């Protein structure tokens, strides 16, 4: 591989990591509260409000049912509003985050829903308010699942970021298509695949280790 291609590869790795990390962080920031809201407003939840629950659920399902490649294009006006441009790595972070947030909200919801209702009742019996229940019970008890779900989200984001090449965001996927596929640079294709495997395995390994450290349930 020529030094030029190597430099391209390194830059693409950085772009992929940047897109994944930034949109992963944003999806955690908004997805976890959304997941909490879904559980809290559901029947028997700590802030039961069925119409809020239904509206939230419908919005989340709406975003989740749009294929990412379409979301990428459809959100261009929104992206321009937020980032100022619709092209480039930072521009791709907007649709990636908007796609990953409802995805992660659903994963977090599943973990939060699995927290034993008896624990919530115990916290109420101690005189805890909703905030206590969220901070001392729901989030800590669901934390292993919340972290495991975040790992899955990050891996999914690496895959999704490959499509962001369509709006000139760069990244490994874009590199693989433009050089590896369209210019028949097999070495680039192989290098990209190896880097992706290492990235995915690394994230999964780190996530699994963190979960093992956090999980005191058995």
């Amino acid at each position, binding site marked *: 591989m020529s030094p030029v291609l190597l430099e391209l590869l390194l830059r693409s790795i950085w772009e992929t990591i940047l897109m994944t990390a930034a949109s992963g962080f944003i999806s955690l920031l908004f997805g976890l509260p959304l997941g909490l809201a879904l559980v809290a407003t559901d029947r028997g939840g700590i802030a039961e409000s069925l119409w809020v629950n239904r509206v939230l659920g419908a919005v989340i399902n709406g975003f989740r049912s749009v294929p990412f490649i379409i979301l990428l294009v459809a959100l261009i006006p929104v992206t321009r509003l937020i980032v100022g441009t619709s092209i480039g790595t930072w521009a791709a972070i907007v649709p990636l985050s908007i796609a990953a947030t409802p995805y992660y909200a659903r994963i977090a919801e599943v973990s939060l829903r699995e927290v034993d209702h008896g624990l919530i009742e*115990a916290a109420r*019996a*101690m*005189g805890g308010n909703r905030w206590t229940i969220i901070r*001392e*019970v729901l989030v*800590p008890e669901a*934390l292993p699942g919340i972290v495991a779900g975040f790992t899955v989200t990050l891996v999914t984001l690496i895959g999704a970021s490959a499509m962001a090449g369509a709006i000139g965001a760069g990244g490994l996927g874009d590199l693989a298509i433009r050089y590896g596929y369209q210019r028949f640079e097999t070495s680039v294709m192989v290098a990209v695949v190896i880097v992706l495997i290492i990235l995915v395995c690394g994230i999964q390994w780190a996530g699994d280790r963190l979960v093992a450290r*956090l999980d005191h*349930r058995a």
Partner: protein
Amino acid sequence: MNQHFPATAKIPVGTPERPEDVVRLTGLKRRFGATPALDGVSLAVQKGEILGIIGRSGAGKSTLIRCLNGLERPDSGQVFIEGREISRLGERELQPLRRRIGMIFQHFNLLSAKTVEDNVALPLKIEGHPRAERLARAAELLELVGLSEKAKAYPASLSGGQKQRVGIARALAARPALLLSDEATSALDPETTRSILALLKDINRQLGLTILLVTHEMEVIRSIADRVAVIDAGRIVEEGPVWSVFADPKSAITQSLLGGIRPQLPAEIARRLTQGAGTEAILKIDVAGEAARGPLLSDLAAAVPGSFRLVHGGIDYVQRQPVGTLFLAVPAADAIHLEQVIAFLRAREARVEVLGHVASFA
């Protein structure tokens, strides 16, 4: 309008107001759909006593205990905790009140993500005490329940009995005026149950803590309760000091709940029992107090000529009062002899019931 009604005006007869009552319930009702879980429960718990509420599953005991700290809201009726009516309070007003009431659960409900000491300290965290103070109090309570060496362990590494000890320590952390126990020993084996009950009794004595417990096991009532209330289909069907309810159970449900720990007619005899004629009459004799303390059977033998034989029975001590049941087989051929035996026993204040007749072995 400046009329003054006496405070007792609204309170139904049967629950006189006493200032020392920690809990007082009047006419509590709660339905779930068409089925009433509570159908007019009135009850009082005095300061320092252990009141046991016993009933079968579905009798309404869990609903009842949850009404006391506002986890459940009655449809009608009143709940007074330390003289204050709480059944209409909002969640926010209930929160400080719940800190005055500790609660322990059948499945312990310990937080798996927190260490034992952090579990015990949680009620104090909720109250806003600084960490050093919380941990000092947690250490004190773990000492009390005999689990000091487990302070840094996670609940998953503890046995059932140890988990419940942590549950008890946690319930006591905020120095409550009342401890609610919801089937706290039902998930434990008999030996662990005994040690947990002994701990609760100790705490009751040492701290003078008022305890209200619900259970479906008469054994729990027998070991630690001062008073018992029997609940069935959402109503209190019987209530009184444990030894007197044990000695003289009035309702069928109480008798059936007592069945497990009272002597029962051996199955072999019950199988052969007929309401028709037989050579021997089988008598069931419930004794308590003086009748159980004295030499009842030898007095009977001295006073009434003729034979009888002891088939089964035993005398137990409940709250230091002897309470027991004996089964006698008395020859039925001589009707006068049988009547004399019954009359003698009744004169000694034993309750006598002729269960039927059996053909003797000979």
